[in-house]
C-alpha cells in the first residue's frame, strides 16, 4: 500500500511538473512581456553611436533609444543588458533577452539561427586613414604591401577580405577603437569600419580622414528568437509606424547621419 501511495505521489507530481513546463514553453515572448510588464533587450558594449555609456554614466545610443521609445509606447519597462558581441546571440537564444537591439547584419548564415526584423537602418562601410597617408579612395588600398585593419570576425573584415583582397588584412579583437589605435601608432596603413562609428572618432583624433567611396552598404536589423513571431511582427510594425510619423528619421538624423548627439552625450 505504502509503495502504491509513493507511486501515485510521484506520478501526480511528475504530471504537474510536465504541465508547468509546457505552460511556460507555450507562453510566447510577447505574452511574457505583457505578463511581467518588462521588455528585456540585449545591446552590444561597443561605443557610439549605436550603444554606449554617455558622459552622465547612462547607457544610451540609437538602438537603446529606439527600444526605449517602443517600450514607452507599449507601456512597459525596458531592461537593458549589455553584452560583448560574442554574448549577444547566446543571450537571446537562452532566453535572457527578448530581442537583440544592435547593428547586426542579417546574413544568410545568421538567419539560420535567429530571425531578423526588416532593416531598421543602413550602414556604409568605408575605409579610413591618416590625412598625410596620400590615399584618396578606398580603391587605392587594394595593392600588395598595404596593411588594412578591421575588427576581428566582423562583417567589415569580411568586406575587406573580399573587396580589398590584395592588401594584407589584420583583424584586431575588440572593436573599432583598437583599429583606430593601430592606425595612429603606425601599425596599419588604413582601417575599415562604418561611417557613423568613424564619425565618432573624427572629433577626438586629429588627422583621421574617411577615404572616398562606400565600399559597401549593409542593412542592419534587430533579431528575435525563431519562435517569437508575435514580437517580430510587433517590431516590424512599430518601425513602420515611426518611419511614417517621422520619429525614426528624427532619431537617425540625430544619432546616425550626423554627429549632433556629441553635444549632449560626449
Amino acid at each position, binding site marked *: 500500500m505504502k509503495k502504491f501511495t509513493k507511486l501515485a505521489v510521484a506520478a501526480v507530481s511528475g504530471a504537474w511538473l510536465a504541465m508547468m513546463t509546457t505552460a511556460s514553453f507555450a507562453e510566447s515572448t510577447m505574452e511574457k512581456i505583457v505578463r511581467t510588464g518588462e521588455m528585456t533587450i540585449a545591446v552590444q558594449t561597443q561605443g557610439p553611436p549605436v550603444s554606449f555609456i554617455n558622459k552622465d554614466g547612462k547607457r544610451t545610443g540609437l538602438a537603446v533609444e529606439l527600444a526605449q521609445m517602443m517600450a514607452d509606447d507599449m507601456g512597459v519597462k525596458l531592461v537593458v543588458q549589455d553584452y560583448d*558581441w*560574442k554574448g549577444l*546571440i547566446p543571450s537571446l537564444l537562452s532566453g535572457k533577452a527578448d530581442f537583440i537591439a544592435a547593428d547586426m547584419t542579417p546574413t544568410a*548564415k545568421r538567419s*539560420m539561427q535567429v530571425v531578423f526584423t526588416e532593416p531598421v537602418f543602413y550602414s556604409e562601410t568605408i575605409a579610413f586613414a591618416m590625412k598625410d597617408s596620400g590615399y584618396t579612395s578606398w580603391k587605392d588600398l587594394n595593392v600588395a604591401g598595404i596593411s588594412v585593419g578591421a575588427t*576581428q570576425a566582423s562583417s567589415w573584415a569580411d568586406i575587406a577580405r573580399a573587396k580589398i583582397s590584395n592588401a594584407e588584412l589584420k583583424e*584586431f*579583437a575588440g572593436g573599432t577603437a583598437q583599429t583606430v589605435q593601430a592606425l595612429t*601608432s603606425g*601599425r596599419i596603413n588604413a582601417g575599415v569600419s562604418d561611417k557613423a562609428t568613424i564619425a565618432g572618432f573624427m572629433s577626438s583624433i586629429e588627422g583621421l580622414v574617411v577615404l572616398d567611396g562606400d565600399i559597401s552598404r549593409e542593412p542592419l536589423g534587430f533579431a528575435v528568437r525563431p519562435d517569437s513571431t508575435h514580437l517580430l511582427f510587433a517590431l516590424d510594425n512599430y518601425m513602420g509606424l515611426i518611419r511614417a510619423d517621422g520619429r525614426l528619421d528624427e532619431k537617425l538624423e540625430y544619432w546616425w547621419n550626423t554627429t549632433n548627439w556629441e553635444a549632449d552625450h560626449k
Partner: protein
Amino acid sequence: MEWLQSIFNFRIVFQYWEVFAQGIVNTILISAICLALSLMFGILIALARRSSNPLIWRPVAVYIQAIRSTPLLIQIYLIYYGLPSILPFGNFLDETQTGIIALTIHTSPYMGEIIRAGLESVDRGQIEGALSVGMTPRQTTTNVVLPQAIANVVPPLLGQTAVLIKDTSLLSIIAVFELMGAGLRMFSETVIATESYVTTAVCYLAIYFMMLGISGVVQRKLGGSAWQAN
C-alpha cells in the same frame, strides 16, 4: 547519427576545418617558440635569482615581481603599441613576432621561479659529490644540477605551459590569428555558439594532450629510472 547531428552540428563544424587547422598550427607554433625561449630565459633567470651578487639578483627580482603583478593584456598592449613610439624601428617586427616577444617576456619569470624551486630541491650531496670528482662549478650546474632540477619540476612546468598555450589567445587583440580567432570567426559567421566554442575547446584539449605526451618523454629522458624510483 541523426540525433547527434541535432545536438552538435558536425556538418557546419566541418565547413570550418581549414580555419581551425590554420588556428591550431598558429597556436602550436607560437606556443612552441615561446616555450623554448621562456625555458631558456627561465633557466637564466633562476640562476641569476640565486646569485649572491645583489647587482644581479636584485634587478631580476624586480623584473619577476613587475611581470607577475601586471596583467598580460596590458603587457601585450604596451609592447605592441609602445615599441613603435619608443624605437624608430619598432614597426620592423610584425604582429606574430611582437606577440612571441610579449609572451616570452611574460612567461619567463614564471618558468624561472619554477626552475629555481627545482634547483633548490636538488640534494646538496649531489653538488658536493660532483665537485669532489673534479667537476668545475659550471659543469656541476649544467650536467648534474639542472637536469635533476628540471626533471623534478616537470609537472609544474607542464601546468605553466598549459597556461602559456591558453594565453596565446590574448594575442588576438594585436591581430594575431590563432585558435580562438578561428572559433570567433566561425561564431561570427554562423552564430552557433555551442559548436564554435566547443570545437575550439576540443582543439585546445588536443594540443594539451599532445603536450602531455611530449612531456612524458622528456621526463623519462631527464629522470630515467633513478628519478622514477624517488
